[in-house]
């Protein structure tokens, strides 16, 4: 702001849907449309789709225990430097600091079928942040920087 170049207006999108895994495909096509219009390369769009799929799957399974009457919200905004995504639920919540990253080797030995989602999100996105108020508002925010970006203007 106040710079000489005109900053791109931030574009904002929001998708709300019943807490059911059948809606994961909808979330991915929502992100595909946004990623393409933001001019992101396909590989980057794929990473974002996967990270958001993981976060939504966690909300559907863990925060809401597959209760389809609950609602999941995915908000997306982008400008010329980055794309930011917030996934919001009003369910159980959790303390991410207590979730230890687990070794695939150990998970396999214990015949676990899960435990990789949060690790995957962290390795796919540039920033990941949690704001948890159980039962009220739990939010995971993820950011992907645009490569070859023109730095956002400082004010």
């Amino acid at each position, binding site marked *: 702001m106040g710079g000489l170049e005109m900053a791109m207006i931030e574009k904002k999108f929001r998708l709300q849907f019943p807490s059911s895994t059948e809606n*994961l*495909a909808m979330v991915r096509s929502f992100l595909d449309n946004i990623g393409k219009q933001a001019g992101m390369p396909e590989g980057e769009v794929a990473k974002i789709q996967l990270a958001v*799929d993981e976060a939504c*799957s966690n909300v559907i399974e863990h925060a809401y225990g597959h209760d389809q009457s609950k609602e999941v919200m995915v908000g997306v905004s982008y400008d010329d430097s980055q794309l930011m995504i917030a996934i919001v639920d009003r369910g159980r919540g959790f303390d991410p600091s207590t979730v230890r990253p687990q070794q695939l080797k150990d*998970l396999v030995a214990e015949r676990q079928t899960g435990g*990789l989602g949060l690790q*995957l999100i962290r*390795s796919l996105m540039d920033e990941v942040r949690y704001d948890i108020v159980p039962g009220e508002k739990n939010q995971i925010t993820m950011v992907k920087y645009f490569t070859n970006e023109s730095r956002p203007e400082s004010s």
Partner: protein
Amino acid sequence: MADSFQVEKSSEGEITVLQVEGYLDAHTAPDFEKALEEAIQAGQHKIIVDCAKLDYISSAGLGVFMGFVEEVREQAGDIKICGLIPKVRQVFELLGFQQLYHIEDDRPAALAKFEESPTWGG
């Protein structure tokens, strides 16, 4: 455009091939799990999962590979993976699957791998 998923089962001698197709996520992983479980319960412990037609995988799909591989290896079998498209391969590799699974280029290579090592490290 709703993303669909299918598993097709076939045999190559004593080896069971599960060909997976489409989108493997938390919604469709139970279908894959069921197919794999049925094969194992029928005593088939040498399994190739051919992913040549797999467009997408999330950790829920990877979890199916994780949950059953010990069981077949105890029975001197294995789950070998083949045909990954680059986008899908990247997800497997991000999580280090190549250190714990034989991941081959295509079905003939996976069959050859079963000749060479019928189980993991065996």
